[in-house]
């Protein structure tokens, strides 16, 4: 009997025959260097969120769309749409925060639990079969966030 990893791989390979999991043996660790109450936080998701005015993700590209979209710090639910075919949108349509917890984070800033929120949050697609470009694009997002003074990031893969 196949375990869940092997079963998932078998299912993916029906669409993408050369699929292999990305595997790493090391773990990069950036230690937190200041109290949480002084930290600037950014959200990152693979929920396929983007501004209604932005170019949608390409759901037809077989490798998976490894690009990202920037969501501005002041973004509201009414500004956002989802282009992602691999999860049920009923949940995010009912409550943005179950994928992109921006209201919760704004509460934590008001409460003084964290210092501030980033002026930019990042959204990627999930369901990526060729992960190479995704790693490079996440490095780019990381560099941009670092340059803008972000200390911590909360990631919500979907």
């Amino acid at each position, binding site marked *: 009997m196949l375990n*869940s990893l092997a079963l998932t791989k078998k299912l993916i390979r029906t669409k993408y025959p050369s699929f292999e999991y990305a595997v790493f043996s090391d773990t990069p660790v950036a230690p937190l260097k200041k109290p949480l109450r002084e930290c600037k936080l950014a959200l990152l998701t693979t929920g396929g969120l983007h501004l209604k005015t932005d170019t949608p993700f390409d759901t037809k590209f077989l490798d998976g769309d490894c690009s990202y979209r920037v969501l501005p710090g002041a973004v509201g639910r009414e500004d956002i749409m989802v282009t992602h075919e691999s999860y049920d949108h009923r949940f995010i349509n009912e409550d943005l925060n179950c994928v992109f917890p921006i209201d919760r984070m704004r509460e934590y800033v008001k409460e003084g639990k964290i210092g501030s929120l980033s002026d930019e949050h990042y959204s990627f697609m999930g369901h990526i079969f060729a992960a190479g470009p995704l*790693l490079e694009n996440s490095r780019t997002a990381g560099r941009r966030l670092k340059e803008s003074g972000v200390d911590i990031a909360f990631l919500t*893969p979907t």
Partner: protein
Amino acid sequence: MARGVEEAGISTVCTTFRRDIIELVRPPRVLSMKFAPGRPLGNPGDKDMQRKIIEAGFELLQKDIHDMTITDLPFRLKKFGLF
């Protein structure tokens, strides 16, 4: 995704509903829950659950870690159709 951001010097914490897959890519701080796709913070409208998950992430961010560290959280999803 966590790897690239962490390499830039930003401390990350991520959620997962696939502990088996996350263990292959080894991000530093992980909140693992027996959830389903599309709801990494749990049930829509469940502010209390969302806050408990985020606060578990804040706790993990403040720990002195040197390798992948996974916190298993006991939360469960309500039934919605197929899930």
